[in-house]
């Protein structure tokens, strides 16, 4: 501050002497001073940021926009693993292929008897600095993740053992069939903890790319990992810009400054569909599910059934033009589990049900029973376009004579989810976390589960859930899961509306950016290419 005070002091002196000098008219000098100051003001600024790397002529650099930016490169912290995986820098022991089935990556094979799992690593896997990946390093990674990531806290309690150069054992103390699915989550990436320093500026891992420059909370550039254990990346490198504003990404794409990006808004998608020669749009249902919980303590069977019959997921998918795909069950159609059926939407059948239950249509088109209009409380929160979904459902219920009263909450978990104060409760969450049905079922259908707040109680379902907890064979697990979910649908406790689409836009000639993989945390890989 001292600086600016002194400059102001000498303004006063400057006025003094200049008056004496009085050579040229002051008007000219004043204007010149202002112009000079504003120009210098502008170009001092280019000394601070890194000028944007234009398209280097010979090198193949993929330019991508991402709506999230990392502060540090530590893959185990919170969700940062998702992004180190997107940047093609980190890999996990197993990964989910496009059919969301578990496939080995760094690991060769895994088998379990009771609670003891033996996992064998692949032969020639190595870090980007050439050091081989040892079981001991893998175990240290899993423990580190357990320490700092509360969602994987169990990993710090498991007991580990090293069998030989390539195999190690994990004892999970109680039967936990979903261990391999956990090992496939990007948070459990394997990094070289000895040479990555504090992971603030660099990261040594096994992925096809290495970090070449990283600006916390801003742009990150990756280059081809010359010592990649699994072949050679086709691209020379990639740049990931932090562009939170969807509109800006669209304009950058149209302006030729971007080659690909994901989570494309419906408006942008419609714009890209207009120019098929330039852009390629890939839309697949991903793992984020929009569903509603019907409160069994408040509405009887007939009303809930009528609601399920009225909500028309196909029409909703139409309105949200391309951001979501209607779904029957909570899981993506390509997954091996979640093969369930539900009744086709049929408003007349719904009305018949209501009339059967003693409701009569009143003058302004709503059903009422002994003087009271059938008004149901529809609670939602204004994120993940649940607000548009609520508005659309309100319109559809109106046709069936059901008056839906919308209430928007800022924090669903603190309000209607906790208190159960709703007739229909909208929610949106990731249903298929790592290629296994148990996670969603334990969150929404199990007794006392956080999102089982609609009074859903079924002895038979509870016993099936218990069995699912310990069932190792994947086919049997799928059958059990299907049966559980089918009962929930038949009992009209839940209504699965739509799965968010993973929309990826790529400039023509860009291939293999995991655009067909339902999971959000895969993007850049060795096969990604552009011409």
């Amino acid at each position, binding site marked *: 501050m001292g600086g600016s005070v002194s400059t102001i002091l000498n303004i006063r002196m400057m006025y003094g002497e200049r008056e004496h000098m009085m050579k040229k*008219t002051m008007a000219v000098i004043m204007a010149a001073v202002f112009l000079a100051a504003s120009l210098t003001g502008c170009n001092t600024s280019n000394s601070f940021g890194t000028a944007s790397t234009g398209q280097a002529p010979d090198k193949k650099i993929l330019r991508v926009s991402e709506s999230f930016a990392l502060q540090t490169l530590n893959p185990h912290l919170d969700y940062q693993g998702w992004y180190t995986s997107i940047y093609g820098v980190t890999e996990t022991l197993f990964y989910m292929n496009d059919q969301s089935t578990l496939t080995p990556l760094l690991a060769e094979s895994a088998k379990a008897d009771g609670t003891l799992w033996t996992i064998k690593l692949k032969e020639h896997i190595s870090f980007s600095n050439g050091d081989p990946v040892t079981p001991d390093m893998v175990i240290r990674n899993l423990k580190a993740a357990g320490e700092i990531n509360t969602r994987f806290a169990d990993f710090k309690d498991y007991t580990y053992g090293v069998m030989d150069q390539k195999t190690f054992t994990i004892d999970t103390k109680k039967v936990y069939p979903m261990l391999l699915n956990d090992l496939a989550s990007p948070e459990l990436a394997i990094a070289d903890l000895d040479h990555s320093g504090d992971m603030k500026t660099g990261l040594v891992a096994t992925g096809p790319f290495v970090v070449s420059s990283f600006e916390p909370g801003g742009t990150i550039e990756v280059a081809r990992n010359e010592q990649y254990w699994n072949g050679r990346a086709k691209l020379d490198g990639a740049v990931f810009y932090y562009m939170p504003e969807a509109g800006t990404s669209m304009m950058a794409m149209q302006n030729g400054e971007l080659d690909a990006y994901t989570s494309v808004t419906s408006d942008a998608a419609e714009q890209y569909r207009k120019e098929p020669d330039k852009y390629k749009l890939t839309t697949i249902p991903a793992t984020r599910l929009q569903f509603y919980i019907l409160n069994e303590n408040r509405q009887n069977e007939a009303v809930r059934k009528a609601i399920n019959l009225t909500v028309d997921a196909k029409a909703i998918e139409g309105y949200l033009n391309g951001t979501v795909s209607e779904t029957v069950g909570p899981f993506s159609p390509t997954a091996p589990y979640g093969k369930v059926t539900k009744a086709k939407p049929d408003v007349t059948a719904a009305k018949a049900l209501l009339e059967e239950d003693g409701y009569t249509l009143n003058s302004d088109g709503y059903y009422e029973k002994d003087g009271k209009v059938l008004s149901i409380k529809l609670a939602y929160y204004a994120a993940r376009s649940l607000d548009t979904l609520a508005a659309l459902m309100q319109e559809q219920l109106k046709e069936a004579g059901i008056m839906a009263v919308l209430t928007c909450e800022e*924090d669903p978990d603190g309000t209607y989810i906790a208190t159960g104060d709703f007739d229909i409760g909208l929610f949106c969450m990731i249903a298929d976390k790592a290629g296994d049905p148990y996670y969603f079922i334990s969150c929404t259908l199990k007794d006392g589960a956080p999102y089982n707040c609609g009074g859903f109680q079924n002895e038979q379902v509870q016993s099936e859930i218990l069995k699912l907890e310990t069932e190792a064979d994947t086919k049997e697990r799928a059958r059990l899961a299907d049966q559980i979910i089918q009962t929930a649908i038949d009992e009209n406790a839940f209504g699965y509306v739509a799965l968010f689409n993973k929309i990826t836009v790529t400039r023509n000639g860009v291939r293999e950016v995991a655009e067909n993989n339902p999971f959000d945390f895969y993007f850049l890989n060795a096969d990604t290419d552009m011409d």
Partner: protein
Amino acid sequence: MSMRKYISGRFLQLIPVLLGITFLTFALLSLAPGDPAQKKLSAQGVAVSKEILEETRREMGLDRPWGLRYINWLSGLIHGDMGNSYKDGTPVAGKLIKAMKYTGILSFCAFLSALVISIPLGVYCGVKKNGVFDRVMRWFCLAGNAVPGFLLAVLLMYFFCLRIQAFPVIAKGSVKGLFLPTMTLALPLSCRLIRQVRASVLNQMGMEYIDGAKARGVLKPYILIFHILRNAMISILTVAGLSFGTLLGGSVVIETIFMWPGMGKLVMDAITARDYPVIQGFVMVMAVIYVVINLIVDICYHLLDPRLEEI
């Protein structure tokens, strides 16, 4: 009037204001719905069980009453540590300084270009009162104030980047990237400033000493520069100083659209993610900046108009 005593006096006034603000923000944050732990854990929409939630809350120290948290935040502050951000654990001070650099540069350029635009135009309108140019400028300024910032930003970007390809869309950090956000901030600001400059110029022209100077046959440019503009600078400076404060608030909208990682964007994300330490730090820094700006404006005030002696 000793400058140092005055400045230190003003800074002393800062202490109660700071205490007031930070206490108000802490109270506001604790009353607000939404739980930081919940926001942090389910950032990507993955639902989380109750125990994990409880544990994270304990880890973040949210289980203690907010009064207690306020006190140890204050004690931390005295040792110069503003605590760490909930979102990614990095120290708040670092994040704020980096964001401050970006916002500082953007605000400075916008403020300067606003001055360069509005002072000459304002003076011309004042001197040529009710001429054609003056009327046109009046409508231009009224219109300039009537366009919301984000609409102006998108229209400018659409026109400059897509239509005439003058500027790249992704130009964060470079001089070219500075032009569009500066213009979007500078235009509405200069609309307000032109009106103010015109008003103070007219005000000065009505003063008696102008007749005195004319009677002595002083030439027109001297009257314009040394009498009218010099005295008018006092009120121009006050309004400009105040508007610099709002600029420094980092107009969130402009920074989001133009990917300019300034303070506005930082605090906007912090609010949605209920990142209390960052919000606290931001509020503190803004209060200090605001008082400093007022101080500078006052000092210039006294330099330009020595009559105000009651320091």
